[in-house]
């Protein structure tokens, strides 16, 4: 039996460029049901009466009475979430486990986890406001290490349920938590809609916020933050890397079409919100991030970093 399906190089490059990878409906139905059962909301979720929805909104009480385990910060993940429990089963889905191991390693530790509960319309009666954009935690200027946050949706999330909104590619920007809340809307923002059992693995820095739940159903999101304990270098399945992934290609003056699936193409693809000048700096950030992941400081894509590092030394200056 396969225990972990590690990410491929293009998937990791996508993560480096966009700050997330996604696995639609990857968690099996019975595990989704187990999660809702352990949260004691399986029956309640189907009951959209205001009384039930009001009860669900008391998240502290909900978590305290649930069978989900509270875990001290810094506990080794695969020890803290035992096999057989809902949370233990989720992180052991081969694709989920593989993504975790590929991004933060098999010895990663649990920073914190939480169940986010968003009331439906019968409770908030149209008064709910969406959450402003923010980057979780605080200012995080780390250049090599990064955390991941697993977003797990145990039930289908429809458009009217106000699934998490996030802005792909914002993860490498150094900002201070909700200082970005002024940006109500950003071109290219994504509103999560997904089947039950969907998992997103997000870089800790990605800008995101909750939407407004206009359905009659309560929406649940389980979020798990993980820290690495080892250098995040070549933790994924690197067997697909070829010499072409390290070779420079013609830039600007190009005679034949480029492979849109190459690592260089993935790392240098712009996003709708990119400013003309800092969009190029995003490419540089991504290339440096990819260098760190590869453990190869000579890597470049389309010469963005190499030309900045080109400072030939004279014999005199070397003396």
């Amino acid at each position, binding site marked *: 039996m396969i225990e972990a399906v590690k990410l491929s190089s293009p998937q990791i490059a996508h993560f480096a460029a966009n700050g997330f990878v996604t696995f639609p409906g990857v968690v099996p139905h019975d595990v989704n049901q187990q999660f809702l059962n352990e949260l004691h909301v399986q029956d309640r979720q189907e009951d959209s009466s205001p009384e039930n929805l009001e009860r669900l909104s008391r998240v502290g009480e909900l978590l305290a009475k649930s069978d989900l385990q509270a875990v001290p910060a810094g506990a080794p993940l695969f020890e803290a979430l035992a096999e057989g429990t809902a949370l233990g089963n989720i992180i052991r889905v081969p694709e989920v486990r593989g993504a975790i191991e590929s991004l933060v390693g098999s010895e990663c530790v649990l920073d914190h986890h939480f169940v986010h509960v968003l009331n439906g319309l019968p409770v908030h009666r149209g008064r709910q*406001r*969406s*959450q*402003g*954009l923010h980057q979780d935690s605080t200012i995080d200027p780390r250049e090599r290490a990064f955390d991941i946050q697993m977003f797990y949706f145990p039930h289908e999330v429809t458009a009217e349920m106000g699934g998490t*909104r996030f802005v792909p590619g914002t993860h*490498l*920007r*150094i*900002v201070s938590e909700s*200082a*970005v*809340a*002024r*940006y*109500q*809307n*950003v*071109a290219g*923002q994504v*509103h999560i809609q997904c089947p039950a059992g969907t998992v997103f693995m997000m870089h800790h820095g990605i800008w995101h*916020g909750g*939407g*407004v739940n206009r359905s009659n159903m309560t929406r649940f999101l389980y979020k798990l933050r993980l820290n690495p304990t080892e250098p995040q270098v070549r933790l994924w399945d690197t067997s697909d890397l070829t010499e072409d992934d390290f070779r420079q290609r013609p830039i600007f003056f190009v005679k034949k079409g480029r492979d849109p699936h190459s690592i260089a193409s993935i790392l240098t693809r712009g996003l*709708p*919100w*990119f*400013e*003309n*000048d*800092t969009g190029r*700096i*995003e490419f*540089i*950030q991504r290339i440096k991030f990819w260098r760190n992941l590869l453990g190869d400081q000579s890597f470049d894509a389309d010469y963005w970093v190499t030309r900045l590092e080109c400072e030939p030394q004279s014999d005199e200056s070397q003396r």
Partner: protein
Amino acid sequence: MDPDRQRQKVMVLYLANSSLDARVNAWAVYDGTGTTHPMPGDSDEPPYSNGLAALQDGWRLIQASPLVNHVSGDEFRTGYLKYEFFFEKVINCD
């Protein structure tokens, strides 16, 4: 015009570069009249394609982000959106 009956509507556009006719990348609207209630994530299409189009529609530019020299050693760090333009409309509330 009775100043006591006037309310400010503010729109913030984030453009692709420092030129006012550059493409809109991000936006926000705050309505002091209370007749609309904009909120995060409420639209995926910008209200105008560029800043100049907002002027042509009667918005008044009240603030533009300055161009700041890059601090040595920090040239490649990215953070907040760079090209921020505040606009206003003054609305009479009867």
